[in-house]
């Protein structure tokens, strides 16, 4: 708990210091085409502040979350971890269902409803994913995605204390999802708000534990971890918004000339010799 206080103070100090002094990224020289393109593609005008929070989150991840997640991984057998995840997913069903409906995804809404009914009963309160065995696969959905489907742009990239990578659209979505969630109201009306704290704590630890190896490798392998996460967050969100559907118009990015100002001779494939 002390750590959270330190975290809170550091976060507040960061907001004040960075918004007052250097919250905004320096704009590139407008004559430098390459720099302007990079700046626009990054869409990260608050980069210095974002990087500050990224480092802060990273620090607390290393000393707290990663440790917890490590114990969680060691202490619990896979069956137990899967049950926890199944239950967490089941609790999230009403929010997923609402967003399925908002997006006009009838068949996915059907899947979510069937999953909720089957897993809450046969699956013993969601601990066992019986619905999956019956062909109703899990999918995620949130109001950030709904807003995107409705045509809202993501806005500038944000890294938030504790929450991590986000953007104004997804941040607004989180707020709406909270309101949509029956458990928020249960916690509020019956004065048992701690159930939601426990739930989101478990969710955070479980997600972190599942991505232990992937995140470690990513961190070790990348030259700019922050920029890598920024890119991956966007791509992952865009894939989620498309519901993972194949999108043919996604393809032509690579080598399409309009993405690259000017041109430079490209050596033919296979003709490049080792320059080292």
């Amino acid at each position, binding site marked *: 708990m002390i750590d959270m206080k330190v975290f809170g103070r550091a976060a507040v100090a960061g907001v004040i210091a960075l918004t007052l002094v250097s919250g905004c990224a320096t704009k*590139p020289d407008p004559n*430098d*085409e*390459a*720099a*302007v*393109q*990079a*700046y626009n*593609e*990054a869409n990260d005008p608050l980069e210095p502040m974002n990087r500050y929070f990224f480092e802060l989150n990273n620090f607390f991840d290393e000393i707290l979350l990663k440790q917890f997640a490590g114990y969680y991984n060691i202490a619990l057998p896979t069956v137990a971890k899967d049950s926890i995840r199944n239950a967490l997913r089941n609790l999230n069903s009403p929010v997923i269902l609402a967003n399925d409906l908002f997006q006009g995804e009838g068949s996915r809404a059907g899947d979510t409803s069937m999953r909720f009914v089957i897993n809450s009963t046969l699956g013993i309160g969601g601990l066992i994913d019986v619905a999956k065995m019956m062909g109703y696969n899990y999918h995620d959905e949130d109001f950030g995605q709904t807003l995107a489907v409705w045509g809202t742009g993501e806005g500038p990239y944000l890294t938030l204390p504790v929450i991590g990578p986000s953007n104004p659209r997804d941040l607004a979505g989180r707020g709406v999802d909270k309101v949509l969630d029956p458990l928020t109201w249960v916690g509020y009306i019956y004065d048992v708000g701690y159930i939601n704290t426990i739930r989101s704590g478990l969710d955070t630890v479980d997600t972190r534990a599942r991505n232990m*190896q992937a995140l470690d*490798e990513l961190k070790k*392998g*990348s*030259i*700019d971890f*922050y*920029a*890598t996460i*920024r*890119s*991956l967050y966007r*791509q*992952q969100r*865009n*894939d*989620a918004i*498309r519901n*993972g559907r*194949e999108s*043919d118009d*996604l*393809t*032509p*990015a*690579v*080598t399409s000339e309009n*993405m*690259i*100002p*000017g*041109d*430079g*001779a*490209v*050596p*033919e*494939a*296979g003709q*490049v*010799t*080792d*320059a*080292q």
Partner: protein
Amino acid sequence: MGSMIGRRHVLTVLVAGFLTIASLIAGNGRAQADNATVEDFITKLSNQAIQEMSEQQTDAERIAKLRPVLDQYFDMPAIAKYVLAGYWRKATPEQRTEFISAFSDYLSVTYGKRFVKYSGHKLDIKRIHDDGNGRTTAYTVVQLNNEDPVRVDWIIDTVNSQLRILDFRVEGLSLSDTHRQEFASVIQKNNGNVQALIDLLHQKSRL
């Protein structure tokens, strides 16, 4: 006279007909061969890359195996150009060549190390889409060990009538796009200096 013209006409129609049929057969045959070629290409790649890689014992061996796979199956120059974006133009020809090589080394090292856990795999080609201009996207589902299946899309180009991979997306995450964003950020932090990125890539490629 009339019969002559008629006969000639019939002949022309026949010839034209044969030509059409021949071209249709050829056309169809080629289209099928293309899909088959793409399937063959992806299957060969996945077998060589994943199976050979999994047989290796050390990181160094895996990395050494991956590098030729990149050269053989990937259009590294085109990927390098895309990944450098506007900075490709700023780079000198020597820097471009050095970047392609440094980037290939970097990919072999980073991804070579990640192959450790893959002891078995299954690749299903779901669909092959012709994107035009000799470019194709193969939508596949890969299952590694007993984990959940993963969507992998391969973007394939034809370079000198040979197939080469331009990019792949794992669950919608593109290799090229991710490195493009990362490298732009690195170059920006180094005041637009491409050489700084190349040096960092060399550094990261050291075992």
